[in-house]
Each structure stands twice: as structure tokens, then as C-alpha cells.
């Protein structure tokens, strides 16, 4: 940010929240025409942001059965009525999981979780023991099968050491290594999590080791800051990328069109 007379949009872009950055970065993952399995919250914002910008022909599929959804308001839940109105198709959940997901039609799945580990395994089931958990989380929902079948998975999660342990307490959704076994050994059709978008930088799957390694930082973030919030000895790619901040247009879409009440950007 060196220019002397920055246009107004760039000045506005100078101030942005971590959630806005994560949504913008996630949106850039999506190419026009791709078929994406959408979750509620930041993934939903990211998908609709991509649809408004570089990917007008993105096909949004929600596990509730809406295919080609074009929500005209921000869906608060994954079964919001605005996902139905104007969509291409509404199908049963048996069709969603068998004819779309298991059939290999889903190109990108977005997932989040209470814990993400070194291998991109996700826990959304329990913190502590299964039989008497310290915290009982909601469980899999569709996440386990999305992690298995989507051609690629992008994880969105804020960094902190409790959320990024070396190994998850409960393995709900499989990453690149499950208790030492590879996805190929286990017979999983999809490529699994290839990227973790955090609030400080981006981790990517190293194809050799299967580990999530730091590949890019957000503006103003130091490597030590990321390492301090991760529970395993994080590998850092020698040529670290620097991720561009949200553009004025990305921020305008997020703030004025997609989430004006700051339900998920707050």
C-alpha cells in the first residue's frame, strides 16, 4: 500500500475485518461454472460473493436439496426458503447424497470445524471423550461424506491453538491421513482438504507428507503469529505468498449486498 493518492475504494479497503478477509479469500477459490456444496456462514458468503464477481455461473448446492440456488436474502439456515425460490431444482436429501455427492458431481466442498489437525482432519463431534464429552458439538451432518466425496475440500477456520491440535479428539471428517493411513489406502474418491483458509494466512496440503503447511500470509501477519496458534511443528514453505487484501468491490458486495446486518461478518 505505497501509492500516494489512493482512490476512495482502496482507502475503504485498508480497513477490513478478519471475517471479511476470510470470505474474500475463500471466494477467490471458486472458478466460474464449478459445482459447489455450500455450508451456512462464511462459506455461504464466499460462494455468493464469487457468484457476484468472477463466477456468475457457479452452481450452488445446499444439503437441504436446493440445486442452483440464487438466494436473494442471506440464508440464516441451510434450509432457508430463499434457497428454493428461483433455484434450478429442488430434490430430496436422498438425491443430494446419492445422485450428486456420491455420484461425483460436487467439485468443491467448504467445511469448518471446532478442531482441524495436522492432516486436515476435522472434528465437529466432541471435545474430550465420546461417552462423556467436555463439549458436545453438533456432529457430522453432511460433513463426513462431503470430506470423502467432494473432488476438493476447502476448510475455513480461525486460528487458535485449541482449534488446531496435532490430532483431533474425534475424527468426524477425514483429511489427508487418518491414523496414519492415506486416502488412497482407505478408498476415498475425493482429493480431500487441499487448503485451510484461516484469519492469518493459508495452509495447503503438502502432497508428499500429507501435512498442512503454511504457504501464504495475510498483510501484516508474521510467521511466528501463525506458529503460536498451531498445535504441531508447522512447516513453512520457503517461498511464502502474500495474500492481497479484500478489494473495494469485494468489501462492497459483502457489506452492502450479502450481509448488511453483519450476521456472519460481525
Amino acid at each position, binding site marked *: 500500500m505505497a501509492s500516494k493518492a489512493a482512490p476512495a475504494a482502496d482507502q475503504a479497503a485498508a480497513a477490513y475485518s478478519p471475517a471479511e478477509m476470510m470470505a474474500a479469500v475463500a471466494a477467490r477459490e471458486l472458478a466460474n461454472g464449478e459445482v459447489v456444496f455450500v455450508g451456512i456462514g462464511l462459506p455461504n458468503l464466499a460462494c455468493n460473493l464469487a457468484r457476484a464477481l468472477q463466477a456468475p455461473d457457479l452452481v450452488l448446492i445446499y444439503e437441504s436439496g436446493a440445486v442452483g440456488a440464487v438466494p436473494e436474502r442471506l440464508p440464516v*439456515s441451510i434450509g432457508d426458503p430463499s434457497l428454493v425460490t428461483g433455484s434450478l431444482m429442488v430434490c430430496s*436429501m436422498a438425491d443430494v447424497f446419492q445422485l450428486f455427492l456420491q455420484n461425483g458431481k460436487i467439485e468443491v466442498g467448504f467445511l469448518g470445524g471446532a478442531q482441524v489437525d495436522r492432516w486436515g482432519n476435522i472434528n465437529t463431534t466432541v471435545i474430550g471423550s465420546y461417552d462423556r464429552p467436555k463439549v458436545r458439538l453438533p456432529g457430522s451432518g453432511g460433513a463426513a461424506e462431503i470430506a470423502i466425496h467432494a473432488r476438493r475440500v476447502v476448510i475455513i477456520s480461525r486460528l487458535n491453538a485449541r482449534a488446531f491440535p496435532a490430532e483431533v479428539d474425534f475424527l468426524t471428517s477425514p483429511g489427508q491421513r487418518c491414523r496414519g493411513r492415506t*486416502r488412497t489406502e482407505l478408498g476415498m474418491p475425493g482429493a480431500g482438504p487441499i487448503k485451510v483458509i484461516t484469519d492469518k494466512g493459508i495452509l495447503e496440503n503438502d502432497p508428499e507428507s500429507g501435512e498442512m503447511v503454511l504457504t501464504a500470509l495475510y498483510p501484516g501477519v508474521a510467521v511466528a503469529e501463525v506458529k503460536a496458534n498451531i498445535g504441531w511443528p508447522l512447516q513453512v514453505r520457503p517461498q511464502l505468498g502474500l495474500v492481497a487484501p479484500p478489494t473495494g468491490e469485494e468489501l462492497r458486495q459483502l457489506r452492502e449486498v450479502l450481509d448488511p446486518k453483519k450476521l456472519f461478518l460481525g
Partner: protein
Amino acid sequence: MHSKVTSMREAIAAHVHDGDTVVIEGFTHLICFAAGHEIIRQRRRDLTIARLTPDLIYDQMIAAGCARKLVFSWAGNPGAGSLGAFRRAVEKETPPLEIEEYSHFGMVARMSAGAARLPFWTMRNYMGTDLPKANPLIRTVTCPYTGEVLATVPALNPDVTIIHAQRADQFGNAQVWGLLGVQKEAAFASKRVIVVVEELVDQSVIRADPNRTLIPGMIVAAVVVEPWGCHPSYAQGYYDRDNDFYVAWEDISRNPARLEAYLQEFVYGVTDRAAYLRKQPELRDRLAAKDLICAGVNYGF
């Protein structure tokens, strides 16, 4: 043929018994809170309650002491957070609530097997996950054609399934539009089916648009006419989801005394759904759906 139309009180009294496996389905859309409230009022006990997303209605049934066991795949407050009574029952109570847990695909597969009267259903799923360790009913089978090892889940055949639909005739031929969830499979899997509707219509309305019929009357035991019977869930074309109430449930359900006060006022304290609605006259202004009519199709030949 005799009309199957009855009151919610009579339908629950006749078809939901202590110890039954009960399914009230509906994925965010068309969740019949009116039926759940009547089950609570009639103080059913030792129920095995099953559905993909327990939602607020099963949280209320757990808090009211109706449930012995919960079968599910995602137990949160959709878009808002947690289910307080469920979490207390699993994290703190002695003994904890018995649970049997799958993923959504697993629950859908259980109902598909039940509906087809097969003993189990196969999927390419669960490899690498801890779910089969948490639930030993998730197993595998070797494909007799390819040798591939596939995941299996057992059929679910509920004693009674309760489905809310936009409209039905007096014999239970029920039409649904909007999100369809797993209602068709759940109904066909069940020993008995109660259909609850926003509107009772003449059979000619059903016959004019047969592609929209989700549940045929031949599998339906009782029809209950209960406008706004899903609130705070929703019915496409009738009323919107009460997202404010879902958010409010975070605080209500976190505090057992507040939750009990809620049940006293809005469940035990009313005789039926009509009385529940009379207590909240503002709902109609806030949530009634605007019209967006589809043109229809040509069924001629």
C-alpha cells in the same frame, strides 16, 4: 372410504405410545412443532426419537422427559448455535441420554432401507472416520460383484412418523413443495404415518397436480389440519421461518429454569396449537408469506 381427519390430540393419543420409536421429519422446512408439543402435553415417556436434525422440537421433548434415546446426525440449533437440553443430557446428566449417531447420508440411507423394506443400505462412506467406533451399527459389507468394501447402516422402521405438508385431502394424499428433506422415505419406512397439513383440500385439487404428491393416502393413518403447525419452523408459501425465535432459543435452552418456564407457558399452558397462536397474534404480520405463484403445467394427453 372414511375420512381420516381427526384432531391432534386424538391422533397422538391413538398413534404415539410410550416406548415407541417416533420420527417427526422435516429438514429446517415443515417441522411439525404442533405434534411435538402435543406429545409433551400427553406426557409420553421412553420414546426413541429419531430425525436427522433434532432441532428445537426434540430439544424441548428431551427437556420435557419424553425421550429415552436420540437417533440423529446433526444436533445443533441451525444458524444459531447449540441445543441446551440435549447438551446437558449428554454432558452432565446421570445417566446421560442414550444416543445413536450417524451422518446425514447415513440417516437418509437408514430411512431409504426402511422404506424399501430392506435390512440395510450401502454407501461409499465412513472410511477413516471415528463414527463406526462411536456407533457399532455402522458396519461394512463386501460387494459380491466388485469386491469393494462398502459402508452399511441398518434400516430404520419407526413405529410412527409425523409429516407436515402444505395440503392433503381427507384421506391423506399429501402434497409438499419447497425443501423435501427425507419425508417420503421416513413415511414409507414407518408402521404408522400421521399427516399434518396447513390446508385440507378436495381430492380434485390433488388429482389436478399428481406430481406434487409426496405421501399417498394409502400409507396414512390420520390427517390433522393444523394451520401454522410448524412455527417456529416454516411452510413454503404459508409462513417464513421464525429466525428470531431460533436465536432466542440459545438463551432459553441454556438455562433449565427458563426452558421449563417456556414449556409451562407455550406447551403445558395451552390446550392446542390454536391457543398457542392466540398467544402470539403478531406472528402473522411478521412471518406470513408473500405470494409467488407458479404457472402450473399441461397434464393433457
